[in-house]
């Protein structure tokens, strides 16, 4: 490794790189003010959110009119979620992402506490206890968990650097976190989020350099455990069987997916036209939620669905680019983690909707109706945008100056007090 020592790039003299050394990222070579944020990413996200609002309205209007006499009920709700989310995005954009380093443990612990709490005081809906209500605000701890996990993993992996390859340092602690998280999620039960979180943790360990053998072994164990979770829970078994045998029980467990595939198939190339779908008449339950993809496929056709997939591909691509351009490993891991969660959720959700994957109950980011999910997703976009600017960490850079100032201030205060005492004494 030392063969490359002392090589210079441009005007920079680079130190030797060894396994022990801090990795110097390309982003760190930027001037202190960094660059402007990723406008492409922002445009993609705004397009997705806009499409989401339109589709949520189209999918829910009739049933809300029937049940509540207010067809715009869900639209206004989701719009307010988007407004909250945009504010959160602004905060994410303004707050230096490195500040989350110190939030890693508090967030993780707080979220775990919430996950425990939700099992006791959570609101039950559709046979799952996933929501918690505090002071009139209802939210989903498992959504927060995804962000907390990304921050925690990014912080932990950066701290451990190359030692991630060591089993006791790289694997054991994260595996413990994974175990606790999976246990709490399965109790809700929220199988979909469990799969996402497990994939996230293992994926981040993988990119950070964990040995493939370890990860492979864990995946095998995970699959075995997952299979156990499937066969021991009738509803999950039904879901898997419904996926494997869609015609065995077309009005039962396969109903939702069958109807969704029917909606997409009957939509054709360009769809039946916005608002003209019939899935919304109650044929596809939870159309505005997990199955918003069916509404898109039916009303906007194959083209609409392809555009959504394309937008997510661009989003993931920009996310990866931001990760690569980050100033240090924490930013890189953080950007990658957030991107991975978006990408996984989008692809798994759309896979379910088109009948490729068994039903997991995951929502489509930015598009599906949902308060916590939308607000947090937009906040994460803000964080991504912040990372994309790759500014110098002014807090760290000015540490010496700040400490000097603090010292001067302290000495000055002491001096003043001393002088006062002296004057008083005389």
């Amino acid at each position, binding site marked *: *490794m030392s063969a*490359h020592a002392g*090589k210079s*790039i441009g005007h920079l003299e680079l130190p030797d*790189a060894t*396994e022990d050394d801090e*990795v*110097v990222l390309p982003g760190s070579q930027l001037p202190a003010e960094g660059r402007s944020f990723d406008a492409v990413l922002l445009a993609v996200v705004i397009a997705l959110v806009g499409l989401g609002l339109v589709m949520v309205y189209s999918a829910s*209007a*009739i*049933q809300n009119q*029937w*049940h509540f006499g207010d067809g715009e009920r869900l639209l206004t709700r989701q719009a307010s979620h988007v407004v909250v989310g945009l504010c959160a995005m602004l905060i994410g954009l303004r707050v230096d992402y490195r500040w989350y380093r110190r939030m890693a443990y508090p967030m993780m612990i707080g979220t775990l506490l919430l996950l425990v709490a939700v099992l006791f005081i959570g609101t039950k809906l559709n046979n799952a206890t996933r929501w918690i209500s505090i002071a009139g605000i209802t939210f989903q701890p498992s959504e927060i968990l995804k962000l907390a996990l990304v921050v925690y993993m990014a912080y932990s992996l950066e701290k451990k650097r*190359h030692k991630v390859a060591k089993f006791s340092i790289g694997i054991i602690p994260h595996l413990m976190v994974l175990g606790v998280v999976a246990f709490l999620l399965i109790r809700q039960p929220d199988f979909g989020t469990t799969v996402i979180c497990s994939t996230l943790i293992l*994926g981040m360990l*993988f*990119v950070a*350099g964990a040995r493939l053998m370890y990860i492979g072994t864990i995946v095998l164990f995970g699959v075995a455990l997952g299979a156990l979770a499937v066969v021991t829970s009738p509803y999950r078994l039904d879901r898997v069987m419904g996926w494997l045998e869609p015609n065995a029980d077309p009005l039962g467990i396969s109903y939702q997916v069958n109807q969704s*595939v*029917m*909606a*997409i*198939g*009957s939509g*054709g*190339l360009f769809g*039946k036209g916005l*608002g*003209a*779908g*019939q899935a*919304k*008449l*109650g*044929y596809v339950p939870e159309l505005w939620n997990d199955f918003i993809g069916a509404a898109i496929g039916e009303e906007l*056709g*194959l083209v609409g*669905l*392809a555009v959504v*997939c394309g937008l*997510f*591909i661009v989003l*993931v*691509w920009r996310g*990866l680019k931001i*990760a*690569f351009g980050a100033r240090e490993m924490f930013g*890189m891991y953080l950007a*990658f983690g957030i*991107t*991975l969660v978006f*990408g*996984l959720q989008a*692809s*798994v959700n*759309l*896979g379910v909707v*088109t*009948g*490729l994957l068994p039903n997991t109950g995951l929502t489509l980011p930015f598009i599906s109706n949902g308060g916590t999910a939308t607000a947090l997703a937009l906040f994460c976009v803000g964080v991504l945008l912040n990372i994309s600017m790759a500014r110098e960490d002014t807090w760290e850079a000015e540490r010496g100056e700040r400490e000097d100032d603090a010292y001067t201030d302290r000495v000055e205060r002491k001096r003043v007090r001393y002088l006062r005492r002296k004057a008083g004494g005389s």
Partner: protein
Amino acid sequence: MSGLLARFPRLRRVQFRMSLAVSVVFLLLIAVIYRAHYVHAEQGEELVKKSERQMNRELTLKARRGSVQDRNGTLLAVSVEVSSVYANPRLLDDKDGALELLAEALDGDIDRDQVRRRLHSGRGFVWIARRVSPALGARVKKLKLPGVGITAEAQRFYPLKERAGHLLGFVGGDDYAGLEGLERAFDDRLEGGEYSLPVTTDSRGRRMYTGDAPEFTSLEGQSVVLTIDERLQYIAETELAHGLKRTHASSGSVVVTDPHTGEILAMASGPQFNPNLRAEYEAVDWRNRPVLDTFEPGSIFKTVTLASALQEGSATLDDRFDINRGKLKIGDDTIRDSHATPHRWVSVRHIIKHSSNIGAYRIARTQSRETFGNYIHLFGFGERTGLPIPEGRGRIRNPSKWPEVTFANVAFGQGLTITNLQMNMALGAMANGGELMKPRLVKEIVDRNGETVEAFGPEVRRRVMSPEVAKKTAEVMMSVVEEGGTGTAAGDPHFKVAGKTGTAHKVDPRTRQYSKRLYTASFVGFVPADNPALVITVVVNVERDWRGQDYSGGTVAAPIFARISQQSLPLVGVLPTSKRPAPAADPAEAPEKVARKTPSTLSDRTETPPPVEIGISRPMVVAADTKLMPSYLGKSLRESLAISTQEGHRVQVHGSGWVQGQWPGPGTVLGDDDTVHLRLAGRD
């Protein structure tokens, strides 16, 4: 950058692995696009159809079913419009509250648990109650519940209650398919076309309409016009029921046909069956006995034995046969006549008149068993007569394998089984000059405007004997009802009757041996004997419960025959005339031949005003709280039926539209069970 990566392999590895992980996501998203394309391209058309079908699935209803009418247009089975209540549960916020309201409006006549389950099923369309009275439907409509609608559906109604119930069968199931009898046999013709209601949400999500169904008369099913004459059917049924009651017999059947055309004018089973109240009956109660019950005919079969020997020329009416004083040993078996007799050599006429079993055997024995067996088949036994409804075939063993005692048994009608209708048709051949007719039950099929779609004419199956043989057979049969014969009870003061009694032993299904309790008492014949207009076959199943109970054909069946023939003849235009000489020596000169201008069809009656009251034998008791006939004038069919149900009397409907005339007229004093004839017209 590449230089940097080269210098920092760890960074390169991280970036490589990140790209790898992200590629998986890319691949998944591309797979989604491919899958959506596949679903659209491979299954698109099918899925479009499927989704459309799903939108309309529950909304398909059938248009009104066609009617079944007798030969004069009297409605035997008719569909009337009633209300069905449906709901879209997604529009009902308070499902249980709505259920309570609906249950109250429908007089609690719904299965609450079932309806509750339906309301909570999450479907977009469920039935609340089907085929309720229009009045209840109107009450539901008045509730004005959003998401609850009323549609008109047709309900099957048999206005004459038991009349021809066994023959008509019934419909059932939600779609009212024919399940038994004519309703089943002609289901294809009777059933109405399917139509969809523009109710519940359409693809653009408009809310469901709660209005009535559209006019669907153009899809109405075709109607079946029978050869049955309701008045003769009434006579046959009431007299059979009366006879069963009088003799304490368990069941029976009657067939009345026109020998010249093979038209079935009446086909009755007893006890009676009212298809309106189907739920109160069991399968045995709606068995159409004249064609489904097979039985050992007994002595009535001697007519076939005689005709075959005469036709074969092996015996003549002048021959005399040795009846061996009523007891004859054949191998180990002994056959007996019903009564010991001092005679040995007797005439053919004597054998038939006194129903000698040994005599019948002697007559049959003049032919080979194969020839006799051939005649039996020629007369139509052992094969279906060709009706459109299910029939029994009967069973005749292979004649060449008959042992001698079986030959003897068959000669007097034991050891083979037949149906009532087969016997009737065979007699028809003797009555019409020797031609075996195919029985006709359906005259024509008409569309909703009364235009004939398909008509069925008389059909001769084959000639089975010469007219002379037929005449001779009839002549011998006339002696049966004459003084000293076994069937005197079937006699008629005005007309000569040719007939034959039968008292057959039945095999007890449990012991598989001839029972001393179970008999088939029968009387078959035709009137007037010299120029037959009606062939009437009466078969009664007797389970003897005490020693004195009548069980012979002469005492059980013959009186039923007499009452049916006496009441029916005037209705087919055979009237006793004072000019008529009592015994016509030569039938060719009989004046009634002139009186019956159109012997083969009864079309001259279709013009007659509402049929006359014919319940001659029914005693009319005027109770203290005398009932008066209400006025039906100007009412619709539905209203009329409602009134009649309330008043508890029968309705005979002629025509369609609104009531233009009724008989008896309004205000007439009524008995408890009386029939009102309504003439309907004015339908556009």
